[in-house]
Every structure is written in C-alpha cells, then in structure tokens.
C-alpha cells in the first residue's frame, strides 16, 4: 500500500501545484511538502507489501506494485534527490514555477511506477508516462536551441520504445504466461525457444539502450542536458530518468536468460565503449553542461559494464552506482545551475578563481565532484568498484579497459574543478547562499550515507540480482588470520544505526 501512496502523493500535489502556476511561494510550499512526505514514506517501503489488482483482464495486464529490492533503493534515493530539486526549481525558474514543479512531481510519480512496477504493462506505461514531463520540461523551459533538442530526444525515445513495445506485447502470448505480472512471466518465459528469446530481448534492449544511454544511441543526452533550463533542475530529473539500466536489470535479463547469454557480450562491449568514450569526450569539453553530460554517460557506461558482466557483485554494484549517481550527478547539475546564476554562462573559460570569494561553494563542489569520479569513501565508489570487480571475474580484459576510464575521469574532474575555482579571479563572486546550501545538504548527506555504509542497500539490491546471477561458488571467509585476536567493537549497534536491516 505504501508503494501506491508513493506514486499517488506526488501526482496529487502535481495537480495542485500545477494549478498555482505562477505563485512562487505556493510552488515552494507544495513542492517541499510533497517531496518530503514522499521521502518519509519511501523510508517505509522496504518490507512493505505490494498491491495487485486486475487492470485489463482480457489482456492480462494487472496493476501490480511490488516493492522489492533494487526498486526500493532507487525510489528512496530518487525521492531524496527530488527534495532539493523542487526547491531549486521553485525558487529559480522565472516564469510558471508551479508548472515546472508539477512536472517534476509527475516525473517522480512515474519513476516510482517504473521502479516499483510488478507488471510489465504497468512498467511500460510508467516508462512512457515519465517521458512526457521530461519532454515538456525541455520544450517549455529550455534554452534557445530547445526545439532541435526536443525533436532529437523524441525521435530516439519513441523509436526505441516502439521496438520495446513490440517485444512486450509479444512476450505473453508467445510464452503462454498467465498474465503480465512478473511472477507469472518468470514462470513461463525461460521455456521459450532460444531464437525467440533473442529477438524479444533485442527489442527490449534497443528501447532500454536508448534510455541507459548506451553508445551509439546516446546523442540525445548531450543536447538534452545542454538545452535544459539553466537552473539544472530539469537535468537532475533527467538523471533520475536513466531507467534503461533498471529495465535490463529488473525485466529483460531475468525473463530472457538465453537472450542475455547470446546478446549480452555485445552489450558488454558497447558498455565499455560508452564508459571510455564518455570519459574521453568529457575531457575535451569547455561547456559545463556538455561536460557533465558526457561524464554522466561515462558513469552509465560503468553501470552497463556491471550489469552485463552477469556477476552478482557486478549487478549489485551497477544498480548501486545507478542510485549513487542520482546524488552525485544530480548535485553537479544543481551546482552548475548555481554557477550559471553567477556568470550567466556555462562556458568554462568565463570562470576561474572562484575559491577566493566562494570557498564554501568551492569545497562543496569538490566534495560532490570527487564523489562523481569515484573517490573511495563516497557514494559512487562502492558501485563502481563492485561493477568492475564483478565483470572482471568473467571478462578481465573488458573490465580492465573500463577501469582505464578512471584516469580520464580524474582528468576531467580535476580540470573542471580547476578551471572553475583555481587561478586568479576576474571578479568577485557571491558565496554560497542559504538556498543553495539547503539544496546541497540532502545530497551530501545521501552521499555520505551511501558511501560509508553501502552494505544494507547492496543487500536489498541483491534480492533482485539473484534472479540473474547465482552467488559464486568460491568460499568466502573474511576470517581474521588464525593467530590474531578479534575484537568486535560493537558492529551490531553501529550497523543498526547506519542502515537498518542487513
């Protein structure tokens, strides 16, 4: 039931907020109330029961919400990220902030639907529903070249989704499943013939690869990020909407194992290319938004590497990274919005030396930036580490290639920071303000929480990873060396305080 409310509350508030239109204070109020309430509710998602009612009986579609494992983690982190996003949006969007916030809330609802759906048709509907607000955000609030960006985005998204739809429609009749519920499909699809599984998988794969995004279907992302509203809020929403990986993880791969076996290696290779390509292209960018777009592409490449390595650790890590990058990449986009506020440009050459008059902003930016490039102890690292570790076990060379991207990440990360904050300052800048600090606090808290204690979330994700890869047979004994004396400094108490159930 909680899952249902996690979807309904943002929707309800979206309607209300949308109607307020231009009243900024109301937009702030409703936005904050909605996102805070949703986040608070989401904390209770783990272990909650789902919902399952018939929806289109003749067709076999049910309305099933299944709060299990990975979906819960993603919904929770997305909910956390939404809090500062609506705050920034409500305060910084010049005209019709209420509409902007409403669109963000609709997106949140749709995302929750995607992550928590237990029925394939519901999943698809949520997938497409979430597309609409992101299109509108770009089209209504974007920058001067938004039309071309919208068109490109639309063509890619619809093109992919169309193929996905064909596969989705075909899967039930072909496999003879009782309904589109995940459990029913899981029982029936593994018996499908290999060739059938392959083409069904390919159909799903293309649609999901566009959203991942995976090279060579990634070009929409660059313009999407470049042309979105300068506050960065729509870009954060876009970051949350990278649901392609989740689609693979939760639906395509568990349901079609033979398809995965045959097509997987190709996807893995493409993921490696994406990781390296994105990181390298990022190092050559001088526009902040484009740099962040390519960087984000690179991270999603690593997510792909983790997923298609088909190792339990890699799968856990990949989805964890998916959640972590919501916070770090989202944070970077919000920071880019803050930078735009100060110089009205996204051109790196217009900045420099900001650390002098904005040291706090500089420090916080560094923190988020280092999270994004995978510095250990912060959120992205456990995900990146496990993704690469897992895939290395079966595909060492591909994983090693993907690991090289950390060098490029170091380059673009440090370059980014230096061109903004180091060197001589042209003109004094405003130090970080109250709004901006409040915006970054939830993200930083989330980064520390995920970075220092990833195990509980990894455990949750594993519930779904198990459906794809079996735990490895190697015996693991984290036993201290036989001669040492082990002292347990209250791991139980500390673990409970930090993240609940194991």
């Amino acid at each position, binding site marked *: 039931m909680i899952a249902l409310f996690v979807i309904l509350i943002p929707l309800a508030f979206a309607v209300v907020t949308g109607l307020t239109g231009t009243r900024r204070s109301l937009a702030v109020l409703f936005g904050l109330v909605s996102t805070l309430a949703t986040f608070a509710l989401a904390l209770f998602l783990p272990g909650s029961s789902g919902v399952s009612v018939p929806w289109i009986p003749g067709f076999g579609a049910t309305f099933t919400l299944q709060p299990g494992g990975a979906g819960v983690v993603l919904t929770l982190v997305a909910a956390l990220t939404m809090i500062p996003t609506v705050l920034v949006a409500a305060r910084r969007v010049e005209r019709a902030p209420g509409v902007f916030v409403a669109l963000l809330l609709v997106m949140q609802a749709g995302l929750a639907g995607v992550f928590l759906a237990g029925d394939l048709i519901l999943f698809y509907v949520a997938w497409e529903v979430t597309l609409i607000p992101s299109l509108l955000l770009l089209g209504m609030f974007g920058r001067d070249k938004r039309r071309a960006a919208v068109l*490109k985005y639309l*063509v*890619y998204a619809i093109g992919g989704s169309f193929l996905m739809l064909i596969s989705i429609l075909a899967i039930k009749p072909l496999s003879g499943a009782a309904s589109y519920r995940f459990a029913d499909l899981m029982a029936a699809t593994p018996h499908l013939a290999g060739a059938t599984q392959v083409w069904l998988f390919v159909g799903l794969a293309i649609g999901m690869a566009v959203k991942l995004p995976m090279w*060579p279907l990634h*070009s929409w992302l*660059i313009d999407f990020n470049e042309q979105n509203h300068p506050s960065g809020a729509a870009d954060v929403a876009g970051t949350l909407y990278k649901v392609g990986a989740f689609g693979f993880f939760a639906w395509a791969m568990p349901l079609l194992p033979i398809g995965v076996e045959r097509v997987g290696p190709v996807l893995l290779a493409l993921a490696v290319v994406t990781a390296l*390509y994105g990181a*390298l*292209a990022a*190092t*050559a*960018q001088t526009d902040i938004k484009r740099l962040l777009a390519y960087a984000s592409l690179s991270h999603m490449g690593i997510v792909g590497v983790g997923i298609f390595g088909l190792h339990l*650790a890699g799968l*856990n*890590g990949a989805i964890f990274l998916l959640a972590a990058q919501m916070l770090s990449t989202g944070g970077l986009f919000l920071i880019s919005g803050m930078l735009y506020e100060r110089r009205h440009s996204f051109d790196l050459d217009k900045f420099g030396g900001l650390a002098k008059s904005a*040291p706090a902003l500089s*420090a916080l930016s560094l923190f988020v930036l*280092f999270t994004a490039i995978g*510095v*250990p*102890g912060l959120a992205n690292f*456990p995900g990146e*580490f496990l993704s*690469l*570790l*897992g895939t*290395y076990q079966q595909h*060492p060379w591909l994983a*090693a290639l993907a*690991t090289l991207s*950390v*060098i*490029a990440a170091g380059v673009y990360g*440090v*370059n980014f920071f*230096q061109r903004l*904050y*180091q*060197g*001589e300052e042209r003109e004094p800048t405003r130090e970080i303000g109250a709004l901006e600090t409040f915006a970054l606090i939830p993200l930083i808290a989330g980064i520390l929480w995920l970075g220092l204690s990833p*195990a509980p979330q990894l*455990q949750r994700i*594993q519930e779904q990873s198990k459906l794809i890869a079996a*735990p490895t047979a*190697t*015996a*693991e*004994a*984290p*036993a*201290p*060396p036989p*001669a*040492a*004396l*082990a*002292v347990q*400094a209250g791991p139980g108490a*500390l*673990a409970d305080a930090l993240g609940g159930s194991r």
Partner: protein
Amino acid sequence: MNDVVQWAALAPLLALVGSLINAFFGRSLKEPVPGILASLAVAGGFVLAVLAFIGLQGSDHGVQVTLWRYLTAGTLHLDAGFMIDRLSVTMMLIITGVGLLIHIYSIGYMHGDDGNSRYFAELNLFVAAMLVLVMADSFPLMFIGWEGVGVCSYLLIGFWYRDRANPDAGRKAFIVNRVGDVGFLLAMFLTFKAFGTLNIGAVNAAAPAMLYGSATLTLIGLLYLLGAAGKSAQLPLQVWLPDAMAGPTPVSALIHAATMVTAGVYLIARIGAVYAMAPAAASTVAWVGALTAFVAAFAAFAQTDIKKILAYSTISQVGYMIAAVGAGAYWVGIFHVLTHAFFKALLFLTAGSVIHAMNGEQDIRKMGGLGRKMKITGVTALIGTLAISGVPFLAGFFSKDAILSGTLTSGLLAGNGGDVVYILLLITAAMTAAYMFRWYYGIFAGASRVDKHAAEHLHESPPVMTWPLGILALGSIVVGYLGLPEFAFPNLIQRWLEPATAKVDFNTVSVSTDWLLVGLSILMVALGLGVGWWVYHVRKGAPVASLKESNLAGASRGALGFDALYRILFVASGEGVAGGIATLDREVVDRGLTGTGAAVGLLGRLATALQSGFTRAYAFAMLLGVVTLVVVAALTGVLK
C-alpha cells in the same frame, strides 16, 4: 592489554574531527588556534599509537577491530575493520610522531597565511587518511585511505591556488596517482578472483598454499607494484613528485617525504606473503626500486632548486625502500621508512627555514654561507645531510646498510639479478653522498652568493620551527640504533617487525663478509663526500663549471626526459584522442542518427508530390492500378 591496543582505532577519528572543526569553524578562529587544534589531534593519535605499541609488546599477533559491514555481494562480505599489529603500529608511530613535529613547525611556517585554517584542515585530513591506509584490514578499506591521501596531496600541492602553476602540479600528481590506482584496482579484482576474499589477513594466510611462481600471483604482484609506483613516485610514475614541490614545504616534508610516498613500501611489505610466492614479481619490484634510486640520484645533480634536489633525493631513497621490500627484507624497508622519515623531514624543514628566511627564494645559486647566519638550521641540516649520506653512526647508515646486504643475500632475487641490484644501490649511495654534499655546501657553507637586499632579512627561524628541527635531528642520529646489524649486535627493529611480516629465505654469509659489506658501503659514502668536498670546497666548483652546459647536465636536469616523453606520449595524444572523440560524436554519430529524421522528412516530401490535384494524373494512376491488378491476377492464375 588488548583494550589499549584497540583504542588505537580512534586515531583516525581524532584527526578527522580536527579536520572538520578547522574546515567549518577555522575561519573564525584566531591564529594560532587552528594549528594548535590540529597538532592536538595528531598528538592524540600519537599517544594512542604509543599505547598500542606498548600493548603489543608481549604478543606478535595483532588486534582486529571490526567496525561495520561495508560491502556485500553474494559470497563477498567485507567489513570495514582495522588490523592493529606491529607493522601498522610502527607506521602509525611514524605518521603521528613525525606528523606532530611537522604540524607544530607549520604553526610557524604558515603564520600569516590567510588559508591557515584550510591548511590545517587538509593536513589533518591527510593524517586521518594515512592512518586508515596503514590500519586497514582489507584492500578496499586501504584503498579508501590510499585515494584519500591522494586527494589531500592534490589539495595541499595546489594550496596556493591563485597561481595556476600550483594546482596544475597538484593535478599532475593526482592523474599520475590515478594511473597507479588503476593498477591497484585491477590487482584487487584479480586478488578476489584468485583468493575469493579481499581481506588482507586471509590473503596472506592463503598465499603460501598457492602455486609458487604462478602467473596469477606474479600478475597480482606486478599490478600492486604499479599502484605502489604511482603513490611512491617510482619508475615509470615518478614524474609528479618534483612538481609537487609547489606545495608548502611542511607538506613536502610530511606527505612527500615521510608518509604518503612510503605507502607503496608499506603495501608491499604488508602483502609480503604474496610476493614471497612470486619471485618474478618480487624481483621486478627490486629492480624498479634500484633503477629509480639510480636515475633519481643522477637527476639530483643538475637541479638548482633547494626543494627539487630533495625531491629527487626522496624518489631515490624510496627506491631503496622499494628495493628492500622487493628483496623480501620487509623489516628493512620499513626501517628505512623510519630513518628516512626523520632525516628527510628534517632536511625539508630546514629548507623551509631557509626559504622562510630568504623570503621565498628557492634557487641555491643565490644562497651560500647561510649556516653562519642561521646556526640551528645549519647544524641540523648538516646532521640530516650526513644521515642521508649514510655516514656511520647516524641513522641512515644502519638502514641503508641493511638494504644493501638484504638485496645481495636475498633468496627471492637470486638468479634474477640480485647482485646487479646491489651494485646499482651501492653506486647510488656514493652519488647520494655527493649530491647531498652539494646541496648542503651550496646553501649553508662556502662563499655567500646571497643578494644584498635579501641578506639583510636573513634570520634564524622562531622556536616553534627550530624545536622540531632539533628533535628530528636527534632522531636522525638515534633512531638508527634500533636496527643495529644482527650479525654483531641486537637488532631491535628486526625482532619487532619480523613476526609481523612474511618469511623469505636469505643466504647466510659469514661475519667477515658482513663486515666487508659494511666497509664497502662506508667506502662509497667516503667516496661521495670526498668528491663533493674536493669539487666544491677545495676547487670551489671549478671542475663542474664546464659541465653545466653539457648533454650530461641536460639529461640530469630533465631527469632523463621522462616528463617530456610523457607530455608527448600521453598528454598531447590524450588531448588529441579526446578532442577527436568529441568531434566525432558531434559530427558523425549525432548527424548519422538525426539523419534518419531528415530521411523521413524527405520521404514525406516525395509522397506529397503525388497529391498534386492534377486530375489527369489521378486518372492515370487509377488506370495503372487496374491494369496492374489484372495482370497480376492473370499471372497468378486467380482468373481461371
């Protein structure tokens, strides 16, 4: 006693808290409060380390402190935990002890700098990360400390960020470190594949049961070596350290002399059990160390910056340590870490004293005779110089000697060129004495080349800076006695550390051979110092004056051109590739796919052409359609 040892786990937390307080509230604290706060945090860590040291006296096992579960993935369950044993405690003592002295020194050195609190926040953070590194009981946790010190190093090198050159130097360090980190990461992945665990203790315990000399173990060893080479500035990743001198001098002393650069040495010593089973990897380690020591010593001769000489000297000395652990003489490597921490930190701090007094001048060609005006700095610098050169009865002598005999007698290196390694290190010892003599003499003795204006400002440093110098100088003399050669005297440090590290076979040699080796190294030192004395004091630098423009000098100054090579090979080509990809993406991949949109539009326009409104065209089309239908029907036999 275990409880006492266990508390050492709090040491990083103290440093972290110190860092956070300075980070958030430092701006509003008046000097010297931030510095005192930071020093107290480190002092607390030092006390805890001493307590742990005492606590571990009786047992040669360590104490495991498990904190919380960090990672879980199938069969991989990794807890964040510390292993406080003799090896880690030794490192902790060095980090917090020398670190404390440097923090106190910094109070004086960074006086008046408006980034004062930021400096101490970053320095404390560094100490915290370094402590985590040495105490970690698993590779990922160690990696957290590993990259943590890298981040702090980056921040501190580029501390005076207004001048672009400084952050650029920091960036270089960070990127080169990242290359090494790739090695560390891949090593971790392979370790998990081979051992099924990432817990260091478990890996060390399982290693002896593995196939001796197997490709997997060798590869693991080589990959960790790559990581170590990055962090410890060894060939081929040594290029960042000379540039790192852009940071404040105490930073160079702490991070780039005493601690961070020794992390690689610690790593290899820590997993000595793996290297003991992979002689090829171990030999590679030793070779890398020896070659680096030699090349860096060569480069030190033509440098003219007071800190750059010390930087190359550090690279060279770390090369000694790496060679030692490569040979399997793990306690020896750590011993040299200890002695080097004292005299190198001392040397850097004296350099800082000089720079401070000379108002920022760092070119030794503009110095000379400073020992007369700065007595304490001069004397302590001399002690440091003699110690690093390996003059008997000072610290460096004992540790360097142990390294030399270790590489010669190592079972791991036998057949893999152990004797060549020995010879390289021996020659380098002579070179070390020579270039360090040049350093000392050129700054503190001889005729003064100091600019008149600067000479007026020359003064000895305040007590807050000279006291640490004194203590470090004392240490540079005394610390060596912990490691008296075992063949004749009790070797305390060997007895302390050996149980905590892996067992490697060494050839035993007769006592007379041992004395012979000692004599040989003393000879080298005398040779180096003698040459230095003759060239600079007796002949006032005349013999080398003509060499200044030679190719040899050029090669030395450019440190054999690694930097230039890398700039072309990696930086330029990297930028080219990146730019190429960016352009490719924009022009080709993008257009290629949006081209389909244009194609669809084109088709649409063609279709529109059909609807012309032209009646006769419609009629013609109809006729055509009917005829086609009829023909097809006739041909397919529908009409029968």
